[in-house]
């Protein structure tokens, strides 16, 4: 196996393009190294993107943020300005492994690993984040909810890689939150994850909302029906109950060692309702 650490995005693209699909991108390595050790991955080439400056930066960009694909979770958590704007995204990032793992792991890697249970992803979907993709044919952008196709599969073409994740400008009177259910308090994988991003008007009526769910289908989902349950309401108990019902109805889970279908469907609603309650608190507090 060959290891390369290119200094520019162009070099990285060239390396990936020339590897006939036998290359893996290495950011923090917290998924890739485990797959290598267990024999689940056996690439001929590892392209380490940590030496590419733009991959390592969090850039405030016209009110939003551009998070380089190799920015570690701890760097993001400790970025106070970002954490103040997107606390729900940070809720998810904080749940990716231990502090040590988060010192290596990246949000970009969490997305590209394409696990349906990835903790970083539902809040990105709720936030309306875009994936900035670079490849031999140039750059393109895709909504996060369209990027992952299924377990371990993304829409990246040959030679393409994720350069950054773009978060929009946070709207006034808005808040986001992510909650997951795990049997353990940490060092665990989501059985269900739910993220809510909502915006209030001056009277406390919800004017827009997005709801993302994780671990309840082959990939994390954007659930417009759940968001619709909130829009036009003051996010009262009745709206929250409708949100929960819509979230549960959107689930297409499987029975597996981590949870039953029945459990996931019910708890998805519970998590969505509780996440919305936190999001509205944040929206009211943040003004």
């Amino acid at each position: 196996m060959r290891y390369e650490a290119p200094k520019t995005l162009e070099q990285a693209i060239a390396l990936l393009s020339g590897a006939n699909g036998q290359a893996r991108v290495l950011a923090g390595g917290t998924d890739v190294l485990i797959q290598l050790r267990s024999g689940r991955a056996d690439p001929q080439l590892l392209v380490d993107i940590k030496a590419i400056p733009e991959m390592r930066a969090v850039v405030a960009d016209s009110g939003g943020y551009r998070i380089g694909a190799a920015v570690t979770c701890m760097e993001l958590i400790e970025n106070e300005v970002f954490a103040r704007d997107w606390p729900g995204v940070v809720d998810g990032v904080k749940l990716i492994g231990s502090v040590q793992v988060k010192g290596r792991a990246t949000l970009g890697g969490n997305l590209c690993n394409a696990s349906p249970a990835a903790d970083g992803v539902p809040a990105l979907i709720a936030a309306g984040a875009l994936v900035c993709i670079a490849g031999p044919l140039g750059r393109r952008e895709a909504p996060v909810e369209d990027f992952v196709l299924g377990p371990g599969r993304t829409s990246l073409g040959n030679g393409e890689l994720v350069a950054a994740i773009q978060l929009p400008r946070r709207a006034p009177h808005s808040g986001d939150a992510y909650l997951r259910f795990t049997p353990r308090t940490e060092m665990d994988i989501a059985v269900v994850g739910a993220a809510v991003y909502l915006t209030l008007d001056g009277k406390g009526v919800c004017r827009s909302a997005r709801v993302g769910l994780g671990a309840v289908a082959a990939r994390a989902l954007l659930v417009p029906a759940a968001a619709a349950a909130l829009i036009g309401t003051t996010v009262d108990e009745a709206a929250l109950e409708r949100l929960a019902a819509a979230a549960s109805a959107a689930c297409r889970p499987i029975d597996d060692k981590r949870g039953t279908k029945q459990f996931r469907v019910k708890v998805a609603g519970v998590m969505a309702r509780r996440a919305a309650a936190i999001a509205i608190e944040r929206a009211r507090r943040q003004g």
Partner: protein
Amino acid sequence: MSATLKYQEKELKLVGTRPLRPDGVDKVTGRARFGADYNLPGQLIGKVLRSPHALARIKSIDTSAALALPGVKAVVTRDDFAEMPDEMAAVGELMINFRDVTRNMMAREKVLYDGHPLAAVAATGESVARAALALIKVEYEVLPHAIDVVEAMKPGAPLLHEHQYTQGVKPKPDRPSNVAKRLEFGHGDIAAGFRQAEVIVEREFNTKPVHQGYIEPQACLASYSADGQAELWTSTQGHFVFRAQCAKVLQMDVSKIRVTPTEIGGGFGGKNNIYNEALAIALSRKSGHPVKMVMTREEVFSSTGPTSGANVKVKLGCTRDGKITAAEAELNFQAGAFPGSSVNQASMCAFTRYDLANVRIVGHDVTVNRPKVAAYRAPGAPIAVFGVESVIDEMAKKLGIDPIEFRLRNAAKEGTQTYYGPKLGPIGYIQTLEAARAHPHYRAPLGPNQGRGVATGFWFNIGNETTCSLNLQEDGTLTLMLGTIDVAGGSRASMAMMVAEELGIEFDRVRPFVGDTASLGFNFLTAGSRGTFASGMASVIAARQVIEKLRQRVAKIREVPLEAVAWKDGHARPVDATVAQFAPMSLPEIARMAGKTGGTIAGHAEINAQGAGPGFGTHIVDVEVDKETGAVKILRYTVVQDVGKAIHPAYVEGQLQGGAVQGIGWALNEEYVYGEDGVLQNPGFLDYRIPVASDLPFIDTVIVEVPNPNHPYGVRGCGEVPIIAPMAAIANAIENAIGLRLCEQPLSPPRVLKAIDEAAAARR
């Protein structure tokens, strides 16, 4: 020598204090060497090919392509190991049969579980070894398998062993069965007992196998010399027992194998048995190189002993005023692929916290297509007690009696006749119940969806074969060579404390360490909570021998009669000025002169320690149930336990806390998950969920000290009792919180939520 030293109450200077453990600095700085830290020049890496099937006949194994791979130096299969006849041996509390040991180490006729070893290779590196495994061709005839214990017991179930006829049934059955053994315990008249009962509670419980969950995977390094000697470094709870097992299966003289135990990263009964050790020696013998073998976590889960899953039925009869009249249980235990579960111990522990006239227990040891079970901390007892203490709690509630009061009305005490044999000696069960009832925890207010549970545990504790050497060095310090493994609980510190107490010197004048198998005579495993009891007794004997020799030397030097020399506070002093007057001599003074007064001074003990004192504990737990998700949060936990005497209270507290934490994990989330195909689905710590620190509150402890009369410092042993009660205590607390009695372990969120939803649906 078969030894007991009686308890003597005396003023203590060191015993009962909390000095730093001698292995502590090395462990926190990373200098301590565990199994995988040992290496030799020219070593090869050994890897094991394992069965992907739950049950299959092996038609052929072709290793030729693997052997032809450059870098592969040796391959071993069943053909490299001798057939073993039936021959039983003790490992900890459990028994093994060498016929099975050799088959578990390397499959012969059949593979019996997902993960069963079929072949092992030694190669110049791990990647070569892995590539070689992929080149080994195995032809299987896959057979239907049996995973569930109740299913496996049925006539017509897929059979693991054609030669296995249920023992303990007369006349001998005419057909083989997965039920390896039926056993029965009891006394009194069970039918009469139930006739006297005014209230009867009967429940059925099911538990899953759980793993010991030690953090350090099995790891060993073997080196076989051209003249037929083997050296082995391994992470073990009993290097002498590992030596014996290796010698047997490799047909070597015991004295030709030297085992050096490494520091151990947890064992809990799971490192009582050999797995890779004999394979490593065989590969080293065949290749002429040292061979190192380190298990992956997946291998640890799929192929090393968990404890049994079980089906348990409990029936209890009681008078309205709270006197138990009859206690009955059926315990059906999974043994894994070979017989030998802990159903025997579980049976004896099930009701032995109560003074009962009428008891009957039937147990079954059942082979199923899972890894062979190994001991796990108080083997079997938590499983039986989950059922029994749940039923005790339900009975107390039905009778309207406080659960501690109900237990006190039926509590075992000194003189209680057990239903398995002995009468109990002085024990502290009642004291633990009273201390629990008096604890502020028992009266603290509870919030909504919160509940409190109580449960109790009993464990025998054991003594057994133990040796040690105490050498006085020329500067007056001492080295204490122990033969029992310090299984990371800090027992080395306790033994050094007892020696220093006897000699009247400072703790750090005694350096304890664990000797290899060539340096001491045979020691049984560190199992059965015997370490500090048995090795402590041996250490005290050795210390008293040293004192005797010190007095003799001083009598000689000072020219006074031996009777005139007393040993006090680290000095030889006149017993009494009227008998003789002489200048006292310190330990260093005597040590410096030892060479000229008869040679070096040492004490030895070679004993079979007798008189282990049973241990009892009472646990209180508060939980909060999230009724929308089924999640159970442990809010508060208090362990009350009679330990006889806490030599080093901090390490005793550590045992009480650690046992409770393992029990909490067992109760809430831990389980082996198998698919329809008989393949283990969660062989890793991500999906096999032991608790993490943030899952737990501080575990409070109350040490009760009712001295064991058969130990010089009153030690009972304390490591196993604390894992027995948690499962039942938590189930009782959940019942108290939400009014639902849960009988299926683990009490995981999906199970709890299902019970809540079903109860709500039933109410509608």
